[in-house]
């Protein structure tokens, strides 16, 4: 394999700017996914229409590939609803829903990992359910599953690469554009691989810092 970075150097800035697109989508999904995921996690066991709906959504998003969801939402829904979302909107919504479904399972596991005794102690003190959930259970649950949550975010960053399928100019797409323009294949691919690797290292270091912050033992 002869490696020659000459031809791709002029495109380096363009390539690296893909990081911004990747991060933007990942950030939207992380925020939307956490919020929704918490809601899903708290309500997926409910025996009312909301619980049913949440379970159906989780089931769909866990059962089909992300590429399919993205294509269906971005390309198919406009022809049904008439609403034509931008790439970023579609990516934001689909990725949020997708991570919400995975995060909800993680969070639910975290919630169930908290010894019921603490809830009982709080109930016995006369504390209201809302306060128990948000002041006793969730802070401990999140701390217990933080490694799993960080894993999910790392997966998220990597999975954003499928947005290239619907035309977003993220890192992966820019690699293929530059390869198509310069006929150099591996040079941009290696750069992209390195960028993802660094992003994920930064993310997991961040995760460890937060983990240390949340530590009480």
């Amino acid at each position: 394999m002869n490696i020659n970075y000459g031809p791709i150097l002029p495109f380096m800035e363009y390539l690296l700017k893909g990081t911004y697109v990747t991060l933007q989508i990942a950030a939207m999904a992380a925020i939307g996914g956490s919020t929704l995921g918490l809601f899903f996690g708290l309500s997926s066991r409910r025996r009312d229409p909301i619980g049913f709906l949440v379970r159906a959504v989780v089931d769909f998003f866990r059962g089909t590939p992300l590429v399919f969801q993205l294509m269906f939402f971005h390309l198919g829904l406009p022809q049904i609803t008439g609403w034509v979302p931008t790439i970023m909107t579609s990516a934001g919504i689909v990725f949020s829903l997708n991570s919400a479904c995975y995060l909800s399972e993680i969070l639910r596991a975290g919630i169930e990992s908290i010894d019921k005794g603490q809830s009982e102690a709080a109930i016995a003190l006369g504390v209201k359910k809302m306060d128990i959930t948000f002041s006793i259970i969730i802070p401990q649950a999140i701390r217990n599953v933080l490694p799993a949550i960080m894993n999910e975010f790392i997966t998220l960053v990597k999975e954003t690469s499928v947005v290239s399928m619907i035309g977003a100019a993220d890192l992966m797409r820019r690699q293929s554009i530059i390869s198509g323009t310069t006929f150099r294949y591996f040079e941009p691919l290696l750069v992209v691989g390195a960028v993802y690797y660094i992003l994920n290292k930064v993310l997991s270091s961040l995760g460890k810092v937060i983990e240390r912050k949340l530590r009480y033992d």
Partner: protein
Amino acid sequence: TQTKSKGTLKVLTSSGYPPYEIVNEKGELDGFDIELGNLIAAEMGYEIEWVDMDFDGIIAALNADQGDMSLAGFNAAPDRGVDFSDAYYQDGESPYWVLTLASNDWSSADDVKGTTVGIQIGTVQAAAVDSIASEFELTKDARKDIGQMVQEIINGRIDWILIDKTVADQYIASYTQLTTFELQNQNFSDISYNAVALPLGSELTDEVNAAIATLKASGKIDELIAKWFTEEAE
């Protein structure tokens, strides 16, 4: 034709591009390029193994020793990172046809100014769009396959794409809201013929050229053209 085989040629293609390469109802690769490829390999005295993959991966795969050659409706043009054989088909039509919504009521190059164009990476049309992008203030939207770009024209996120006339005609037949017209520009590479793509510096190029010449002389290529282009287009 030789009877003894010299080995196997790995030939890359990207089906879903009628009439060049498609999958028939039995699930087999079929189309003009496929029949031609089989003839060329036989002529050269090789067995053939087809590899059907995403179009934008073909050039990289050729240069990564993952294929000996490729027939994928390539329009030969300089600087595409691969070597090309001599022409095997030239329909006289330019490969630069605009496919767009009929309701846009476009008819000439002026109409595409400031619009969003869909491109499929690695195609000659993508290179052509590149060459006029700044002059026409085009926004480029790169997609994986033509099928998806056509949906995006209908959705309105992409205004137009540039494709071969034969392909454009077939989409118009399926989607009545579409129309096509030729885009002319002096920047466009005027070489517009289909050729076999080979890795840079491939030792097979001469053999392939010889085989094409033989097949042309025997009229076999014309038979295939008649079969796939005249009949299909109707």
